[in-house]
């Protein structure tokens, strides 16, 4: 029979091996979470974080510049802004070309991203149709149906 010490080495060595595998798997998961990868939800861009540390001077207000609600102003906070015809939207549109849950503006590290929520007629940033989340610069027009929105400081 094999020496007892060898058996003990086997006993604990195998458990160690098993957990090393799990550790390696977790490293992969971690790399996956932190690394740049194509996901629907944008990861926080490092540049934006850096900007926040220096005291971000991001946009403060959302202005409606055209459409039935023209002149409306919404003060931006940390929360996401939901735009659509649904009553619980942050900005309730009365626009036949808007969907009930049309688009969403999210704050990530002081920067605002616009995201289309599967609307029928689409959301446009400048002239580009919004497919994934897009960074919105100040003064860049976001068009939803007949309504045009702009971020301003």
């Amino acid at each position, binding site marked *: 029979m094999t020496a007892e010490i060898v058996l003990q080495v086997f006993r604990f060595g195998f*458990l160690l091996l098993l957990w090393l595998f799990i550790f390696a798997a977790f490293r992969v998961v971690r790399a996956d979470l932190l690394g740049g990868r194509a996901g629907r939800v944008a990861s926080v861009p490092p540049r934006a974080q850096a900007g926040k540390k220096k005291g971000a001077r991001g946009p403060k207000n959302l202005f409606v510049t055209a459409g039935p609600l023209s002149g409306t102003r919404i003060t931006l906070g940390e929360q996401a802004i939901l735009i659509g015809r649904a009553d619980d939207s942050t900005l309730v549109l009365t626009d036949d070309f808007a969907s009930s849950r049309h688009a969403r503006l999210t704050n990530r590290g002081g920067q605002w991203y616009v995201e289309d929520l599967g609307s029928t007629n689409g959301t446009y940033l400048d002239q580009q149709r919004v497919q994934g989340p897009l960074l919105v610069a100040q003064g860049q027009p976001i068009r939803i149906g007949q309504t045009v929105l702009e971020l301003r400081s």
Partner: protein
Amino acid sequence: MAAPVPAVGPGTDPKNAAPGVTTPPKRRGTELVMLGFAVLITLAAQTIVDITITGSPSPEIATFGLWFSGIWVAAHLVVRKVAPYADPLLLPCIAVLTGLGLSMIHRLDIATNALGESVSSREDAPTQLLWATVGLVVFVGVLLVVRDHRALARLAYTIGLVGLVLLAVPAVLPSALSEVNGAKIWIRVAGFSIQPGEFAKICLVIFFAAYLVDKRDVLALASRRVLGLEVPRARDLGPVLVAWGVSILVLVFERDLGSSLLLFGIFVVMLYVATERVSWLVIGVLLFSAGATLAYRLFGHVRLRVDTWLDPFAYYPDGGGYQVVQSLFGLGTGGLFGAGLGGGRPDQVPVAKSDFIAAAIGEELGLFGLVAVVVLYLVLVERGLRTSLVVRDGFGKLLAAGLAFGIAWQVFVVLGGVTGLLPLTGLTTPFVAYGGSSLVANFGLVALLVRISDAARRPAAPPAPPAPKLGEALTEVVRP
């Protein structure tokens, strides 16, 4: 292949750079390394078993090693070819689980043969390795045939029908062809016995996903608030009632507690994922309680299972408690670090190779080993749910979530049964337990997850050239 999009910081040029769109890594190299690690663990386990029990490594280890590595190298190469962006952890996780299972079965083979009681000393580990090879063929087949998981949604009703038929066949067949150990869940043809329920499970998840993507708005929005709960309209309750009825019927005709629990749980959770309404979970639990009470009243075998669960020692050594109590003894003997591979006596538990393989692992690898196995399942499920979060289409989301939850739920129910937390159900531990149908079906299931995760992680097609400027385009006056 699309030309890699240059990594542009989102802050520089908002027009071209959707945030997070850099060249996504394919991570196939990582997968290969992890698979190598998995094979290493398996070979280590086999060698330790042989050395501990017989004193020297068996000569068959080389053949086994080559065959086992061959399976995963083949799977890896196919994934590299047809699903290059697939998740790198799915294959390694199931490789370790399958390898651990094979080692445990091999170990139990030696133990039962050493007893010398059985005239026909059966070697189950080679059979299981053969099944794993069949599983590989199914895995490759699914990946090659299903090039886009959304194609499955178009065939959903056909697939759902196939699932129901598969589920119902053992109930209809005469007992001689379909009954093993009191559970009427088999089809036995020409020396082979397969458990169609394992395949039916996957078919039904595909059907549920497609159905719910179709109907989720109705299920989510048309409801009244009663006592703070969104109560759906009666006619929207139809599908969940049908699922409930089917799982009860399975229970009645096939005496299969496990499958009915599994199906109903998966369906309720998919309904919840699709609608985000907690009320469906509440309704599910209420229906389950009603069904469970009914089953307990009506069926002797269910009552026996529940009674032995509540007090297994009352039915020991004679009666239904023998398995559970032996399994608990085994787990207790294992303690924290286990008896070492080959050092325990896991063959003391009846059907240790299939239903109670978790008890065998717990005895020989201890709590640390058993928890490691659970964490491996956890990683597998996490990758599935992650896929579900990232993939862009609703059908893929629901399908991935349903499949991943199915694995989690099955592991929970099985381990609950083995450790005495839940009544025994007779489900198999995915990938680890001895059993061809289960292994092959689960390989197919992972192939689907690999396919969806490839779609999820693949970079979106490069943005189309800027569309004609809608707002600013000059109106073109067409003169007749």
